[in-house]
């Protein structure tokens, strides 16, 4: 590599595409006239091709992908690591958050009556198929009040809401995914949210596929 020409040092930046349009045009015109810079550019291009021969172990990509897939999502509490299934962990966290936000939003810090409904739903693989719901698990036996409340509810954008989880209005959730749905109901408001973990590999960001919605009780 010859650097007798003062412009030769710029050729390195030229092949890296790090020059402005004006500098690039000017240097290319110079290279066309300068034997030293022409040789420099050819050398650098050949060097780049040679360096590109260094390759990764072809089996490592899949090996690492498998290793990442097997990693469990973990939560920490009081300095100790807890191994908690993600849907449950996410539901607990969202439930706590919803309780705080809901109480603050509606100005009531002491709900008179409270009920939590937890269920999971398998979304259909095709639009024509119905969603399959598992049995609901409730913390209190107050289904009549819940149905009345749901019928009279009015959706309110709380500012933290995402898309609803009914499977029709949630195109970001893949068909066949399993949804975990939790509903927190008080006599003032309903907070509902969902998470899904179709793939175990990327559990935490997947929470964003779920949603959080508030409805006011009337």
């Amino acid at each position: 590599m010859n650097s007798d020409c003062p412009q030769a040092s710029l050729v390195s930046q030229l092949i890296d595409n790090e020059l402005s349009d004006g500098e690039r045009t000017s240097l290319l015109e110079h290279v066309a006239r300068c034997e030293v810079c022409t040789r420099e550019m050819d050398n650098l291009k050949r060097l780049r091709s040679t360096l590109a021969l260094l390759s990764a172990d072809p089996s490592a990509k899949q090996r690492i992908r498998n290793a990442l897939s097997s990693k469990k999502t973990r939560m920490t509490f009081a300095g100790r690591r807890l191994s908690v299934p993600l849907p449950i962990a996410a539901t607990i966290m969202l439930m706590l958050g919803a309780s705080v936000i809901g109480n603050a939003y509606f100005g009531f810090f002491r709900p008179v009556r409270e009920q939590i409904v937890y269920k999971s739903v398998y979304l259909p693989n095709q639009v024509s198929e119905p969603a399959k719901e598992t049995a609901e698990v409730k913390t209190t036996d107050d289904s009549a009040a819940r149905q009345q409340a749901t019928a009279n509810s009015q959706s309110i954008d709380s500012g933290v809401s995402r898309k609803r989880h009914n499977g029709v209005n949630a195109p970001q959730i893949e068909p066949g995914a399993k949804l975990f749905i939790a509903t927190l109901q008080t006599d003032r408001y309903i907070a509902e949210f969902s998470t899904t973990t179709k793939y175990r590999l990327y559990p935490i960001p997947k929470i964003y596929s779920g949603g959080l919605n508030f409805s006011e009780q009337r």
Partner: protein
Amino acid sequence: MLMNNSGFEELYSKQFDCVYRYALALTGRHALAEDITQEAFTRLLNNGFAIKRIERPAAWLMRVARNLAMESFRDQARARLQPEGVIPMNPEQLFFTNEIQQRVLSAVRTLPEAQRDCLSLREYGGLSYEEIADVMGISIDQVKVQLFRARRNLSKHLEDLT
């Protein structure tokens, strides 16, 4: 960048080679490069909700890989192992690594640390000068100088191959 399943998949597919080859150029060992690559992507996953706030995931991964490589050098120094030079490969690694690759790796490993780092971030990491400067904590002008010198030195070492 909003990170989700497909986002991570895309990033993994796109950046795996970059991170691995950068780590390989720094360490000279396939086994170590694989460990570093896995740990870098694991840390990306463990970032959870903070992932979406990473503006330049490629540069972020390279920075993590670089730090891990530096840690491994310190560990090697403590164990009185020589980090410089190319560690001989086992038969499995030799299966996919030909002589030319060994030559390239040896040549890259002869460069001074800053030149090797700069060149590897550019050629294998695919980072811009600005990103390299950010990762290495140096100015863009210094990046230009280091890259120029690295290429000049490498051309001498690999003259018969280029």
